[in-house]
């Protein structure tokens, strides 16, 4: 069965510092991995995805994520955090030839000035 783990409920980082939001996954086949961000009272906004190819994926708003097959991880990163990055971040996995996304429980990112 597919699953996603986000081991940190909350991440706090100072503005201008690099940030990392962790995600590990478990699938039986090839994984398709996604990151979404959710602002208060808003739906999920797509940031980036890994399908195949280069392990470093670049996405919206300066975010990037690194796919590591041996560690079954797909951590979200940004070199320099902004206060406006404060939100709830969800990692999701979709196995090939399936329809549903399986989401993690989310990580609340707080960037302080």
């Amino acid at each position, binding site marked *: 069965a597919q699953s*996603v783990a986000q081991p940190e409920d909350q991440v706090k980082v100072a503005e201008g510092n690099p940030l990392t939001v962790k995600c590990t996954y478990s699938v039986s086949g090839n994984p*398709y991995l*996604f990151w*979404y961000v959710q602002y208060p*009272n*808003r*739906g*999920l*906004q*797509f940031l980036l*995805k890994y*399908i195949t190819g280069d392990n470093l994926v670049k996405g919206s708003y300066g975010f990037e994520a690194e796919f590591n097959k041996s560690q079954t991880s797909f951590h979200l990163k940004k070199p320099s955090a902004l206060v406006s990055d404060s939100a709830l971040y*969800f990692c*999701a996995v*979709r*196995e*090939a*030839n*399936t*329809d*549903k*996304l*399986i*989401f*993690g*429980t*989310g990580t609340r990112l707080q960037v302080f000035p």
Partner: protein
Amino acid sequence: GAGVSQSPRYKVAKRGQDVALRCDPISGHVSLFWYQQALGQGPEFLTYFQNEAQLDKSGLPSDRFFAERPEGSVSTLKIQRTQQEDSAVYLCASSLREISVETQYFGPGTRLLVL
């Protein structure tokens, strides 16, 4: 509209009442998904449509939940005889094609509160 829209944005229902939640996907998107997001949790899959065909309804929690997409565009999620445990945000998503690599784009959600 450029994105997925959902209505109503907020719904308060008395226990036992029936509710209907609407989703307008991005124009031309073949696939449509419904998810349920409980407070403090990640979204959980409810059901999936490819055009008008409901191909997967394995996530619907009970037979009180019913979804349809009769013309392959707008979809409605209906909950009959609502219970307090149905209180959640219901998210709709659409994707251009039916293959697994496609990005799902989400609407703002309908927040349902059952009293």
